C-alpha cells in the first residue's frame, strides 16, 4: 500500500536509504577513483594548493614513465623500468595462478574425500587443517624461511607457490566441503549403479556440478595470493620471483615525491582484481558467504 503512495515518513526513509547507499559507494570506490585521477594528473597540478577532483589536463606521462623505453629518476633520463615491471607482473601472475591451480586441485579432491569417503583419521585431519585458518602464515614464517633455505627453494616459483598453497588451502577446503555437502548423493549413486568408478564419477559428474564452488575457491585463492606482501618480501629477494606487491613499494621509496607515478603503479596492480570482481562477483560473494557458514 505504502509503496504506491509513499507518505512523508516513507519518502524520508527512502531518501535516507539513498544517502546511505551513496556514502557506502563513495567510501568503497572513492579512494580508487582518487588514485586513478591522481595517476592522470600533471605533476604541477598535483602539488597545487587546490585539489582537482577531475584531472584538469588528462596526462598519461606517469604511465609513459612505467611503460616507456626510458624513465626518469633524480631528474636524469634512466633505463626503462618496464623490464622490471613486466618481470614483476609476470611473477605475480605465475605465483598467483600456480597457487590457485594447485590449491583448487588439491581442495577439489581432498574436500570430496572429507565429505564422501570414510578413511581413518578423517575428522581429526579436517579439524587440524581448518584450525590453521586461525593461525596466520606469519607465525611460521621464520622456521619456514630456514626450511626453504635448506630445500633451496628461496626465490623460486615452486617455493612461493607452495607457501601460498599452504596458506590458502584450508579456506578452499572448507569452501569445497560445503559445496559437496549441499550436493545430493543420489546422482553419484546412480552413476555407481551404472558401474562408473569413484574417480570417474567425481571427475565427470561431481566436479562439473561443483563448478561454481570451484570458481569461487579459485577466485579467493587468486585474490589472496595476488595481494600477498610479507611472504614475497622475505622469500622473493630478486626479480626472479619478486611480485608487483613488493616491487611497487620499492618503487615508492625510490621515487619519494612522485605521487602520480606511485598511483599509476598502484592502478596497474589493481586492474586484475577489479576485472575479476566485475565479471565474477557472483561467485566471489557466494564463496565468501559459504566460507563463513558454520
Amino acid at each position, binding site marked *: 500500500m505504502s509503496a504506491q503512495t509513499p507518505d512523508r515518513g516513507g519518502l524520508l526513509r527512502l531518501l535516507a536509504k539513498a544517502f546511505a547507499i551513496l556514502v557506502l559507494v563513495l567510501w568503497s570506490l572513492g579512494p580508487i577513483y582518487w588514485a586513478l585521477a591522481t595517476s592522470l594528473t600533471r605533476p604541477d597540478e598535483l602539488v597545487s594548493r587546490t585539489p582537482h577532483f577531475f584531472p584538469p589536463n588528462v596526462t598519461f606521462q606517469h604511465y609513459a614513465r612505467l611503460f616507456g623505453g626510458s624513465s626518469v629518476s633524480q631528474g636524469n633520463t634512466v633505463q626503462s623500468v618496464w623490464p622490471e615491471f613486466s618481470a614483476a607482473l609476470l611473477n605475480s601472475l605465475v605465483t598467483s595462478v600456480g597457487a590457485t591451480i594447485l590449491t583448487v586441485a588439491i581442495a577439489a579432491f581432498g574436500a570430496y574425500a572429507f565429505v564422501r569417503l570414510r578413511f581413518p583419521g578423517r575428522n581429526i585431519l579436517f579439524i587440524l587443517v581448518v584450525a590453521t585458518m586461525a593461525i596466520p602464515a606469519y607465525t611460521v*614464517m621464520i622456521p619456514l624461511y630456514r626450511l626453504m633455505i635448506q630445500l633451496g627453494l628461496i626465490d623460486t616459483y615452486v617455493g612461493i607457490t607452495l607457501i601460498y598453497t599452504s596458506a590458502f588451502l584450508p579456506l578452499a577446503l572448507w569452501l569445497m566441503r560445503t559445496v559437496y555437502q549441499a550436493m545430493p548423493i543420489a546422482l553419484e549413486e546412480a552413476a555407481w549403479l551404472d558401474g562408473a568408478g569413484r574417480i570417474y564419477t567425481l571427475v565427470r559428474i561431481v566436479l562439473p556440478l561443483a563448478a561454481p564452488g570451484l570458481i569461487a575457491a579459485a577466485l579467493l585463492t587468486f585474490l589472496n595470493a595476488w*595481494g600477498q606482501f610479507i611472504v614475497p618480501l622475505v622469500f622473493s629477494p630478486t626479480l626472479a620471483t619478486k611480485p608487483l606487491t613488493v616491487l611497487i613499494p620499492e618503487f615508492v621509496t625510490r621515487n619519494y615525491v612522485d605521487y602520480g607515478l606511485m598511483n599509476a603503479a598502484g592502478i596497474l596492480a589493481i586492474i586484475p582484481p577489479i576485472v575479476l570482481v566485475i565479471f565474477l562477483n557472483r561467485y566471489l560473494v557466494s564463496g565468501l558467504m559459504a566460507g563463513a557458514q558454520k
Partner: protein
Amino acid sequence: MATEQSTAGRLGFGNGEAALGLAFVVPIVVIMGGLVFMPLVTTIVDSLYRVDPMRAGEPFVGLKNYTDLAADSNVQTAWANTLAYVAMAVILETVGGLAAALLLNSVRHGRQWLLAAVVLPWCLPPVVNAIVWMWIYNPSYGLLNHALMSLGVIDTPQVWFNDRGTGLFLITLVHVWRMMPLTAIILLAALQSIPKELYEAAKLDGAGAVKSFQMVTLPLISGGLAIALSQSTVFAFNLFDEAWIMGGSGLGTRSVIIQVYMSAFQNLRFSYGMALSLLAMIASLVVSLIYVLRVYRETRMD
C-alpha cells in the same frame, strides 16, 4: 593416472574407499604438515634456543627469549599499538559491516552491483591500498587536509602522523577499508538466512524496528557475528602491510608483526622473533575464542 582410475573404479565401496580417501588427502597432509605444522613445532622448540644466523652455535637458553621480550620496551610499545589496532578495527568493522549488511539486505534493485562495489576493497592488494591512502593523508597535498579545511573543521594542514593516536587510527582506517567488506558479507549471509515469518510474527506482537532487531535479527545472526568478530581479530592482530608501508619502522605505529619482522629479518634474531610470533598467535587465538564462546553463550540464553 589411467591405471589408478580403473583400479579405484573397480574397488567401489569396499576397502578401496579408505585407500582412495587417503590418496586424495596425501597432498594436504604433505603440504600442511611440512609447511605449517612442522614449522609450528619448530617455532615452539626453537624459541627456547638462541638461533641467530650471524652467530655460531644454537645453545639452549630456556625462557630467556621470553623474559627478554617482557623487558623490551619496543616490544611493549608494539603490543600496545597492536591492541589499539585490534580494538579499533574490530569495533569499526563490526559496526560498519553490520550497517552495510543491513543496507545491502534491504536493497532490491541492483544489489549485485552494490555488492561488487562493496567487496572491491577486499580484493585489492593491501600494499596498494596503503599507498593510495598515504597520498590521501599527505600533509601538504592530501585530500583529507583539503576536505577538512574546506569543511572548516581545521584551519591549517595537519601532519596526521605526528600524533600517535591519530596515526594509529588512520592506519586502522585503511585496514578497515579492506576488511569491512568481509564482515558485511558474512553478516549479509546470516541476515538472508532469517525466515521472513519471524519478522511478521514480531510485528504482530507489536515490536518496532528496534525491538525486532533485538529480538529477531541479533540472536539469529550471532553465529555469523562470532565468525566475523574472530576474523576481524585475527587479521587485526596480524596487521603488517598497511602499517609497514605507512609507518615503516617508526615506533609509534609499529605492530607486533612488524616487530617480529624487524627482529628476525633486520636484526637477524630468529628465535627472538619466533618467541614473539608465537605469543602473537596465542593472543589472537585466545581473544577470538573468547568471542566465539561469549556470543554462543549469550544466544543460548535468549
